């Protein structure tokens, strides 16, 4: 079986280099599309997860907080849809990838009704593998973003 490169790391010039097979680049794009689709569908369970009530004791959430959330989701989605094929990312672009993957994973966890670790045991291997793709990409992005820039 041919070995597939899966690498995201900070390069010597400070940018974040992405060496992924095409299918994982497309995976990132699909994550962005899933997040934007949920954000744009107020009747969906995904929308409720992304825009869930912040303060259950208040009549309504702070409108500025709600607006900030909408703008940030839109911004991250747009950044990923612009850069999903890229092999070199700025820190801001890599942050957008991480944000989108994290929100998309959260949406998926909501769909699968995963609330506690034991719920993972009920997943079939394909579902687990799907979640692990998110987790591997997230971990690689965190490691790359936290790597010190070259001096």
């Amino acid at each position: 079986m041919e070995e597939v490169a899966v690498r995201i790391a900070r390069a010597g010039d400070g940018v974040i280099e992405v060496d992924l097979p095409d299918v994982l680049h497309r995976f990132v794009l699909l994550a962005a599309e899933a997040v934007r689709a949920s954000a744009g569908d107020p009747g969906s369970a995904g929308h409720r997860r992304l825009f869930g009530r912040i303060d259950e004791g208040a009549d309504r959430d702070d409108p500025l907080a709600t607006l900030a959330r909408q703008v940030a989701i839109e911004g991250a989605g747009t950044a990923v849809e612009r850069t999903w094929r890229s092999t070199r990312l700025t820190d801001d672009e890599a942050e957008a990838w991480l944000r989108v993957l994290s929100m998309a994973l959260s949406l998926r966890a909501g769909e699968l009704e995963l609330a506690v670790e034991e719920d993972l045991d009920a997943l079939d291997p394909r579902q687990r593998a799907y979640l692990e793709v998110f987790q591997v990409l997230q971990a690689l992005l965190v490691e790359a973003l936290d790597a010190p820039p070259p001096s």
Partner: protein
Amino acid sequence: MRPVGTGLGTSTEERTGETTDLAPPYNVFLWNDPVTPMVVVTRALKRIFCYDHDRAELLMITAHLEGKVVVWTGERERAQRYCVELGLSGLQSTVGRAS
């Protein structure tokens, strides 16, 4: 799941003096989720709250073990903004009045 009485959030309030006599303090609760990698949670807490690594990791582990944890206590609007930031990192959180 049950609330965690770690006092971790309260110590932030005491240290930073975020609250006033006019507004009751609010807690930001971070809820455990079984899928987000621990490094992602820890990094989010460091970035959003400017916590050092040890403090962020302790909060992450407490949420993991106890179901939820108070990650910050202070004025309400700021608590809501922190909650939004946590949500943008894929984390489930809520704001509630501190007792």
